[in-house]
Structure formats: structure tokens, C-alpha cells
């Protein structure tokens, strides 16, 4: 296990082994870690700019307009220009705020966003810290994400910000449970919490989205709720509560929330592709590209899916969102755990499990939503012809 550090990256391994005679052991850890972190930042920082550009451009094209196209070719330099602009913006700290918390919140918001990347495997052994508790670490760290949001919302001394913060806590509280439970059913199949081993499991068997379609659905919905993106962006629903928890933020401090949001989206895309879509595994035939490129390609694909959803759907209401989590996702996740337990216990063939689970997912989603959903919302076909003539 300790050997993982030394070969998580070939160059890294080479440097570390070259230095191993010179430096003490703890310094080696720091060198290895720093190289890994730099590699991670080399991926993350350009990805920030790229995702912002992709989101704006893609949403523009969904809305049959051009999107950014002024700065640079196809507007490629637009995020850079935005970054330069936002650093030069005046930073306003309103009079009534709780200054310390107000300043700390944008810094703290970055910590969970970045820390989750420690356990994401970008390739076989291409992982910063291959923890035994992999996915549990990830969930624990991401559960901290609510604290900076509440810090920002509470310290702003602004009613919209406070409402946004309250909503954020409630939403995170509601969606964390189905998220965790959906992951548990995956863990039951793989028998390990390590994300790397989950990917290896998918290499031996089917990809997880075929084995656990219901878990995928629950995870996808819960994760996009945790990300506060449409249709679940009640935390910053601009038509209701202005900008939610970051209403009072401006300049660079505001941009930290923005950056953290995109970092989180990428992280969730990464988890989605690692846990459910085979991580670094290539699609069956196309085996030419290196593993990490496959993984990054999958991350970007899921990012585009998030953009697509954002471009299409209206926002849900806070109580409907909570209802979805507690009344729909949570029972389904519990059922899924039981069914998966029985399947694993009976040691069924993966293909059979996949078949059963897909059928079960469709049946459960359809049946349960019909059972608890508002039937009028789903089925009512209203007539819009003059039924009652008012005038004689």
C-alpha cells in the first residue's frame, strides 16, 4: 500500500526514486505529494477556464445564439478575460456583515472542493492518495461543503442570503442521504471503498451503470442537487432570492464561489464516470487513447450533460425538491440496497443482475412515482374550450 505513492506517476516515481537516497522519508512524501498536486492543478486550472467557456458556449448554442465569440477565436479567451476582469473588480464588504466570517467563507468554500480530488483515480495508480476508505472520505469531505455556504449566507446580514443559506443546508441535508445510500449499493457489489478498485471491478464485470441503474439515477439527481445547479439551484435561484448566499459578494471573493462551483461540477462528473462509467476504462473497441485521457473525456462528457440539463429545465421549488429527496429517492435507495444484497448473496451472474436491476429501476421509478406523485400533475389533460358559457 505504501508503494502506491512511488508509482502513481511515472515521472514522479522516477524523481522520487532518484531522491530517495538523498532526502529523508518525510521529505520524499512532500516531494511526491507536491508533484502530484501540481499535476492535479495542471488539470484543474485549465479545466476551470475550459468548463466556463464550454458552459457559456454550449448554453448559447442550446439557446440558438452564438455564445461568447469576441475575445479570441470562438471566444476561447473569454474566461481568461473574465478572470482578469474579476481580479480588478472592486471588492465590497457591506457595512452590516460579520467581517471575519464574510472573509473566511470564500476561502473555506474552496477546501472541500479541492480536497475531494485526492481520491479520484485518473488512471490505474494515477491517484493522489489511494485511501482505504476512498469513497467514504469523498462523501465526508463533500458533506462539509455546506458550511462555507452557510457562513457566507449568515455573515452577509442579508435576508436573501440567509434564506439561501437555510435552503442550502436543508437541501444538502436532504440529498446527502440518498447520495450515500446509492453509493452503498455500489460498495456492496464491489466490496471495497476504494474508487480504484471500483473501476477494476467494472473492468472485470459490466460497467456499473448497467449493474446499478437505480443507484446511478439516485446518485445523479442527488449529486446535481448538491451542486446547486438547475433544476435544483434553489440556493441561488436568482428569480426568487437574488443570488442566494452570495448576494453580497463581489470581486474576487465572489469568483471563489464561482470557481468552487465548477470545481465541484468537475468532481461530481469525475465520480460519476469513475464509479458508474468505468473510470479510465476505454469503450470496448476504442483502446487507442491513454487511460487518463479516457477519464478526462468522460468527465467533460458528463459536464456537458449537466450543461444540457441546466439549459433545459426550470427550477424546482424548495419543498418539491425536499419531497423528491425524502419521499422518492430515499425509499428507492433503501429498496435498492435490499435487492442488491439479495443479488450479491445469491451470487448471480452480472448479466442477470444487470437485467434484473434495469427492469427493477424502470418498474420502481414508474410505480413509485405514480404512487406518491401528484397524479394531477402527471396525468391531467385539461380542456381549454369554453365549457360553461357565461353569456346567455
Amino acid at each position: 500500500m505504501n508503494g502506491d505513492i512511488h508509482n502513481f506517476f511515472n515521472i514522479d516515481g522516477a524523481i522520487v526514486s532518484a531522491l530517495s537516497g538523498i532526502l529523508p522519508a518525510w521529505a520524499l512524501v512532500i516531494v511526491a505529494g507536491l508533484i502530484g498536486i501540481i499535476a492535479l492543478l495542471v488539470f484543474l486550472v485549465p479545466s476551470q477556464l475550459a468548463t466556463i467557456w464550454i458552459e457559456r458556449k454550449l448554453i448559447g448554442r442550446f439557446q440558438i445564439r452564438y455564445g461568447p465569440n469576441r475575445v479570441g477565436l470562438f471566444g476561447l479567451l473569454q474566461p481568461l478575460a473574465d478572470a482578469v476582469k474579476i481580479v480588478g473588480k472592486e471588492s465590497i464588504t457591506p457595512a452590516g456583515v460579520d467581517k471575519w466570517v464574510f472573509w473566511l467563507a470564500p476561502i473555506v468554500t474552496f477546501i472541500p472542493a479541492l480536497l475531494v480530488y485526492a481520491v479520484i483515480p485518473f488512471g490505474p495508480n494515477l491517484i493522489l492518495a489511494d485511501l482505504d476508505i476512498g469513497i467514504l472520505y469523498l462523501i465526508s469531505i463533500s458533506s462539509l461543503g455546506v458550511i462555507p455556504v452557510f457562513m457566507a449566507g449568515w455573515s452577509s446580514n442579508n435576508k436573501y442570503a440567509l434564506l439561501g443559506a437555510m435552503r442550502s443546508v436543508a437541501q444538502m441535508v436532504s440529498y446527502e442521504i440518498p447520495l450515500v445510500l446509492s453509493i452503498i449499493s455500489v460498495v456492496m457489489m464491489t466490496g471495497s471503498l476504494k474508487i480504484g478498485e471500483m473501476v477494476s471491478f467494472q473492468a472485470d464485470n459490466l460497467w456499473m451503470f448497467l449493474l446499478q441503474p437505480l443507484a446511478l439515477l439516485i446518485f445523479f439527481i442527488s449529486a446535481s442537487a448538491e451542486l446547486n445547479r438547475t433544476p435544483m439551484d434553489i440556493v441561488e435561484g436568482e428569480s426568487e432570492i437574488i443570488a442566494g448566499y452570495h448576494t453580497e459578494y463581489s470581486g474576487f471573493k465572489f469568483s471563489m464561489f464561482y470557481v468552487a462551483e465548477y470545481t465541484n461540477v468537475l468532481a461530481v462528473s469525475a465520480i460519476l464516470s469513475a464509479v458508474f462509467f468505468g473510470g479510465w476504462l476505454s469503450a470496448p473497441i476504442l483502446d487507442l487513447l491513454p487511460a487518463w485521457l479516457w477519464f478526462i473525456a468522460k468527465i467533460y462528457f458528463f459536464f456537458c450533460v449537466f450543461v444540457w440539463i441546466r439549459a433545459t429545465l426550470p427550477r424546482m421549488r424548495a419543498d418539491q425538491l425536499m419531497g423528491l429527496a425524502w419521499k422518492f429517492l430515499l425509499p428507492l435507495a433503501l429498496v435498492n440496497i435490499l435487492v442488491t444484497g439479495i443479488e450479491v448473496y445469491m451470487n448471480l451472474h452480472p448479466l442477470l443482475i444487470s437485467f434484473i436491476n434495469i427492469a427493477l429501476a424502470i418498474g420502481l421509478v414508474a410505480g413509485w412515482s405514480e404512487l406518491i406523485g401528484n397524479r394531477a400533475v402527471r396525468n391531467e389533460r385539461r380542456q381549454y374550450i369554453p365549457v360553461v358559457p357565461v353569456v346567455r
Partner: protein
Amino acid sequence: MVAQDSAIKTQPIVINMGPQHPSTHGVFRLRLVLDGETVIDVEPVFGYLHRSKEKLEEERTYLQTLPITDRMDYLSSMTNNLGCSMAIEKLANIPVPERAQYLRVIMAELTRISSHCFAQGMQLQEMGAWATPLMYFIREREKIIDLFEMVSGARLTFNYIRPGGVSQDIPPEFIPACYKFIDEMPGYIDEYEQLLVQNEILRSRTMGVGVLPRDLAINSGASGPVLRASGINWDLRKQDPYLVYDRFDFDVPVGQHGDTYDRFMVRMYEMRESVKIVRQALDQLPPGPVTANLPIVIIPPPGDAYAHIETARGTLGFYMVSDGGANPWRFHVRAPSLINLTALREMIIGHKVADTVVIFGSIDIVLGEVDR
């Protein structure tokens, strides 16, 4: 100090939604009192855009009042011109040539489509759909505005319909362009319905939300789609036909529940009906003059007149009093946007903050008309 208020009571939180708020259609203010997220009281406050239009009109000649009516309901200025012109015609007994009446119908119905397009788009925007439906709807609205620019030369404040007819005849290229538009439009409406109408999020956000009961709708003077969504078959184009509306075959969509979804759908169907009317009017368009021969300054005899029309927002009425001079003595506007707000309080109370903007958007007001 200790334990004197140990009972866990909620303190109401007072929130201003507006005047500077992303979803208030201008500068409108809702003073909400919240318990958690539930609205327990609401008070609409407006007047931020008050420009004293009624006073301005009193100082202008009858012809000069028209450009000012353009700026009341700036999303449907053609119908404002129409209502004002009809009141002046009634006051001064001015005949309107038949071709002008048909042109007025075409313009009024195109205005209805464009206004509804904007209303629907903004409604979705307020539901948080991130501008995509808005962009789709604005695409159609722009096509109508192009048509209007073709006839009147302006894109927002048209000043086209005048007392005695319209300001000028349509250019020859208008008719094919308009036919092209009304041929395309039903397809686009289908597209919107595919995008929106069966969307579960939209349905659950709107169904049963902001119910305006039938009796309250009548009693609070609601008009237009708001009234019809509450199940009242009252459309001035049918019940009190002005212009040549009685010559066209069209239906008036009427809802049954009076909730936000019905208001949304009534507008959706009205767009289809308007397309039908425009097509019939274009087919029947007679030749002839488009304006009555009028002196430069219209001087009606003393008296008063009230004319009302059905605009996209409801019953727009103009009450004019003449003292026999060149300027109106009194120029009163019955603004549908203002009066539809009367029942807003009853519609909002008990719903969530997020519903507030949706209900408010479903009334579809234009602040230029509320405040005048």
C-alpha cells in the same frame, strides 16, 4: 430574561421583493412577510414608474396622445394605439374604412402573439429555466417585430393605428411576409409545447398554484387570460365585438381551475387562435383607403366616450372627456395590468417564496401600464 419566551415561536421575516429584483417585470415591489418560506402576508407597492401619463395627455392634441399611449404597455403598443384611437373615434364620430379595420385586427392579433410570447418566456425565466424558453419565444417575437417595422417603421413604439384608421397602408411585401410567419408559427408553438407543456417540473410548479377562484376573479375585476383561466368565458372580441371581429371564426380558450397552469395554457392556446384570426383577416383583406379624411387637428364635440378592447393583458379601456377643445379634458385609462393585480394578495398568501414570482409572472403585467 430567562424562560419568558421559551415557546418556540417563529418570527416573521419581512422581505422586499423589488423594486430592484431580477424578476419583477420592471420596478415593482412586493413586501412579503414570511414564516420560514411560506408567505403569510403580501403587499404590492408600485408607482415607481409613474409618469403621469393621464396628465400629459390632457396637454396634448388628440393625435399627439397616441405616441404617449405607445409607452404605457410597451410590449403591445399597437393595441394601446387601437384603444385610444377607438375612444377618439367614438368621441368625435369618426368613421373607419374597412381596410383599416382589417389591418387593425391583423396588428392587434400579431401584438397579442408577440406579447404572449414574451409573457410565456418571462414566466419560464422566473421559474428558473435559465433563459432557454425565453430565447425561443423571443425568436418569434422578433419576427413579429420585423413585420411591425415593415409597416410602421418602428420596433417598439409603433404609433401606427390612428384615429380614423391607420397611419399608412401596408407595404406590398408585408402580406407574403405575414403569411410566411403565420404558416411557421403553429409549428413553433408545437415546439414550445413539446419543450414545456408536459414537463413535470413546470406542471408541478404551476398546477394548483395561485388559484384565482371564479367569483373572486369577477369581483376583483380581472380580465384577459387571468379571467378566462378562472373559467369565465369573457372575451370582448366575442362578447362585445369591436372592429370586424365578428367576421372571423375563432375560439376563446377558457380554463377551469384558475391556477397558474391554466393561465399559462390559455395564453398558449390564444396564440394559436390569434394565428387563425390573422390568417382569415389576411385572406379577407379588402382594398380601399386606410384612413378617414381628417383635419390635422381633431376637435370633437363636448361629451365623453368610453371604448374598450381586449388586449393581451385584458380589457384596456379609454375614457375620454372632451370640452370641445383641441385637447382632451380628461383622459382616463383602465389599465388591465393594474386591475389584474387586485387579487394578487389572495393568490399569493399561503404559497412559498418561489411561487410568488411564478404567480406574479402569470398575471403578466407591464409596469408601464400599471403605473402609467
